[in-house]
Each structure stands twice: as C-alpha cells, then as structure tokens.
C-alpha cells in the first residue's frame, strides 16, 4: 500500500538570480522518520531546505513540493510555517531591540503567558519560569535577555535556532548543520535534545550535517546525498562510517562503479 509521504519533492529545479542551483531533485520525507541530507559543500543542501521553507529568493522554475499530498508552491513562508514546516537557519539574522525570551513567548503558544498583564507584580509568570528552565537544558540561559541573534556566537546561534524550531512543535523540521561550531559539551546537549524528539516520534527530522556524531547518535533512518544540485545517492545509517572514512568523492565514485 502506498502511503502519501508527509513531504514529497518532485523533480525540483531551483534557481537564484537566474543561475540554476537545484537541477531536478526528487525525494520523500515520511512522517516520524529521521533523515540525513549530506553532500559536499555547495551541493545545494541549504537551498533545498530553504526552497521548501519558501524563502522568496529561491526561484522554483519547475517541479513541485507536496505537503500531505498537496502542492504548497503558492503558500508563503508564514503559511508553510503554520502548516508545520520549520527551518533552523545556518546563520540567522540579528533582530535588534527584540529580546530573545520575549520573542520565544511571542512565537510559541506553549510559553505564552495566560495570566492578565500586571498580575505578577514584577515576578515572572509560570510560563516564563518554564521557558527559563528549558533554556537551561540547552545551555542558553545567558541569551534570555539578549537581543535576538545579536552577537550570538556560532554555537549559541545553533542552540537558539534549535530551541525555536523545537518550541514551534513542527511536523517536519530542517536542521541546517545544527552541530557545526559546537564544543563537545554542547554537541552532547544538542544530541540528547534531538534524540528525545526522535523518541517521541511526532516530528520528522531532516538533518543537514558534515559530522557523523549527531547522525549516528540519532540513528538516522535514511541518508540522501546531494551533489551538484542532484540527488546522487540514497542509503541508510550503515553508509555513514564508510562515508566518513572515504569522503564523498571516493564514496560516490565507488558506488557508481558498483552500480
């Protein structure tokens, strides 16, 4: 029986400023599974995720994106976000004057204060307390009162992005190199956080990464490899150590020979 996948990409061609970056990519993401999207630098991984999120500079020249079987090409970013698609930015822009904790409360219903304003006589409401506890879990308590993304270090950006995306409780999340620039301790925190999401099984996770640690820790179900804007390989967990050892070039050429 054919189950409609949560997200299906059909022969997607994407160009930026007139130059084509994705040259016809077809792949699927099923509900509840964990995917790795791998590939050498500049192979189009981020482009794929951003085009799915609907960022307007990514021009879809042909193909389709189906979400629960329906095309979402006409939906804007906000609409896609509200459908349950989330993207953790590689380099999120700074938003001066918008406090990180206020912003989270604004975008996540879970943390929104349900009490009337002024009710707490200067004390934080219980939702805020919960929020601060959750910050603590990802080691970003120090960011609470800072302006969103303003001067966040590389590692802080990653964890703040992950925090936001998780808090939105999406159906599918694209994590664009959630592990790059993290120290060992942060890597563990992030790994554990992602693992617990995986175990709940309610969210499809797509991880773009260059490191095996997170992917192996998460036990990804499917590995997609992009190269030159094309899907060149589909595999699974077993491929990751081989890939790490041989590198993309050798791995892919040996695969071609074998085929």
């Amino acid at each position, binding site marked *: 029986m054919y189950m409609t996948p949560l997200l299906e990409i059909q022969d997607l061609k994407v160009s930026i400023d007139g130059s084509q970056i994705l040259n016809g990519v077809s792949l699927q993401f099923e509900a509840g599974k964990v995917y790795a999207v791998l590939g050498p630098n500049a192979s189009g991984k981020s482009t794929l995720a951003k085009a799915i*999120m609907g*960022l*307007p*500079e990514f021009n879809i020249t042909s193909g389709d994106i189906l979400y629960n079987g329906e095309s979402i090409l006409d939906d*804007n*970013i*906000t609409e*896609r*976000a*509200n459908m349950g698609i*989330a*993207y953790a*930015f590689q380099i*999120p*822009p700074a*938003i*001066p*004057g*918008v406090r990180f904790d206020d*912003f989270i409360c*604004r*975008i996540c219903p879970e943390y929104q204060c349900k009490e009337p304003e002024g009710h707490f006589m200067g004390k934080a409401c219980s939702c805020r307390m919960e929020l601060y506890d959750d910050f603590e879990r990802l080691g970003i308590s120090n960011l609470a009162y800072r*302006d*969103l993304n303003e001067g966040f270090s590389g590692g802080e950006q990653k964890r703040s992005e992950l925090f*936001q995306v998780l808090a*939105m409780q999406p159906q599918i999340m694209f994590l664009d190199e959630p592990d790059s620039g993290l120290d060992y301790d942060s890597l563990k925190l992030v790994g554990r956080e992602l693992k617990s999401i995986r175990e709940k099984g309610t969210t499809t996770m797509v991880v773009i990464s260059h490191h095996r640690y997170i992917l192996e820790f998460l036990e990804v179900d499917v590995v997609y490899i992009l190269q030159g804007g094309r899907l060149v390989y589909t595999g699974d967990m077993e491929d990751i150590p081989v890939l790490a050892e041989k590198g993309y070039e050798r791995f892919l050429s040996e695969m071609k020979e074998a085929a």
Partner: protein
Amino acid sequence: MTSSERKEQAEAAKDRKATYGADIDLDEYQFGGNPQKMAADQISEDDKDLVEEVGFRTDQKGVSGSFAQFDNESILADVLMSQEGLEVMPISQALTKYDWLSDYLWNAVSVDTDKYTARSELESYDGYFIRALPGQKIRMPVQTCLVMKKKQFAQNVHNILIAEEGSELHIVTGCATPSTVEQSLHLGVSEFYVKKDARMTFTMVHKWNEAVDVRPRSAAIVQENGVFVSSYAILSPIKSIQTYPKVRLVGKNARAELYSVVYGTKDSVYDIGGSLMLEAEGSSGKVISRTIATENSEIIARGDLQGRVAGVKARLECNGLLLSKSAKIVAVPVLDASAEGVELSHEATVGKVGADQLNYLMSRGLTEDEATSLIVRGFIKLQAPDLPPALQRTIDEAVQLTLEQGL
C-alpha cells in the same frame, strides 16, 4: 551681561536666519501674553486629555513637581508638599526671586544665535525654572507640559533647569497641541546646568500637528563628574521642526547622552540633531538617533562630536529606517577632533526593513505585517542605560502607541 546688553544683542540678531531648517516669517505670528497662575483642578477636561497623551499626570501621582503652561496664558507650578530641595516655578517669578539667576539666562544658549532666540528675548516670555538644591536626590520626576492652542500664535518660552552640586533631577516633559490648531509656532529656549557630581535626565515627548512649526533652542553645560541624559521622542506629524541641542562637557569626567526617536508621518519635516563638545579631560558621551520615515515625511538626522582635549571618547549613531518610497532620510554625522588621542566613532545607516529579517521572522509563523512591526519596534527601542525605568517606560509606551496607530 546686563539686561540692556542682552536686548541689544537680540536686536542685532533679529533677522538672522538659522543655519538649518526652513525659514519662518515671525511677523506672521502674534506674540506676547501675560500668563496667570492656575491650579491643577482648573485644567479643563479637554486639556486634561491632551496633556495626558504626552504623559502629564493631572492627578500628579508619582511626580515630585509639576509645571504646565497653556499658550502664554495660564501656568500651573507645583511642588509636592513633602518634596524637599526642589524648586519649580515660572521663570518670571524665579528671575525676580533670585538675582543670581540672570547669570544663567542666555549663558548656555547665546541670545544672538538666530532670529528665534533673538525674538524670544525681545518678546515678553515665561517658561519654567526647575532646580534641585545641592545634594538633593530627587528620585521622582518633575513633570512639565507646554500646550499650544491659539491660532496664528507664537508660544515662546524660556526654561532654565539646574541640578546643583551632588544633586539628582529627573524631568519628564511633554509638548502638545490639539489636532485642530491651525498654523502656530513654538519657540522654546531651554538651558540646562548640571553641576559637579550632579545627574540630570530630561525625557521629552512631542505631540504636535501638521500646522505647527517648532524651533527649540537648547543647550547644556555639564561640570565635573556630572551626567546629563536627554531622551527625545517625536511621534506625531508636524509642519516642521528643527532642533540641534548642544552639550558642552566642561568638567573632568563629565558625561552626556542624547537619544532621539523620530517617527515621521504625513508631509512632516524633521531636522533633528545633537552635538557634544568634549572640552574636559575624561569627558565622554553618545549621540544616538533612530528615525523611521513613513508616508511623505522627510527626516534629517544630524550629529556632531567635537573632541577638544586628549583622551576624550564619544560615539555617534544615526540609524534610519525607510518605510515608504516617497519618504526621505538624510544622516549627517560630523566628527571633529582637534587634539591627539581623541576617540570618536560613528555609525550611520539608512535602509529598508531587511528581507532576510522578514523571511526569518515569517519562518517562525509571523505574518509579514507582524514581522515588519516587530522589526520596527525593535529598531526604535531606545535603551538609555541611565534613564530611570519609569521614564524608559514613558518613552516605550509613547512609541508603542504611535506604532499601533501607524502600522
């Protein structure tokens, strides 16, 4: 300077055009008046609504003193009974009471600066005198409000504010006109004196209308270890405003910060500046403006830092956000160092709301309008670290209110 010398100088400058801003024909306006004292309970209901819009509390809750002037007609001046060490009175009364006060008159601001200062001196005037006595820390703000209601009329005030040695003084002031007033002019001379080890903050919210021209002439002199913080928000339409407050840091380690927020609407022209003259060792400061231009508004944001002795340090930021194709923002930063080892820096940006910021916020579920408004609110947020939280809130609330109406 004697009174007759002042008049002479003013007479000589009577036709001197200002360096900036559209020239105004002063003969089109009626000057003068003889303000009478009034009590808080004599303020009419309409006037109450008006002054409350710029943060003036007619119940006088949470303030240490109040001053309100309606055209050049009636004046309210009050100090909280239990408040020691504070003086709030009409300048006319203060000049009679204190002989020494004439030394402060036209000292920070020169009477012959231009035709506006000259005319202010030549016509009869009133205004406020606010003073914190030596060592008095007056934590609750003094509120002042200048209201202009008459048509074809010029309201000319002369204010003198003094924080004596070791004192602390916070002023929150609003200026307002009812939306129905036609063609009128506000000339406000304000002289600030911050003595050794004193702190003064001045928080001002302007609410004028499209028929009003405003030409404030303000200057401050800050002495050793003194701190002067001015925060200014103009959020309403106006015909034109041109203001360029100048602060002289004359004492060792004196510090000044000038913040302004301009939210330009309609066909208004705002020429807003701030100048710091760093004349003493260890003096420092900031001039920061955030401007937002919508509709057909035009904003000129000037800033001027002058380092006169070695080792002084100051920063200038003019950031503008254009929200309309037919609006205009010009940033004019000037850094002028005439000594070695002066550290002056500036940042000037004028731009639209960034697409990357918008897309990012939309990816978190906000609509385009919500995202724009969040970016604008964040941009305009003034964070003056030396401002008491209550005054910060005054500015924040005024800004929020405007944005809610505007966006």
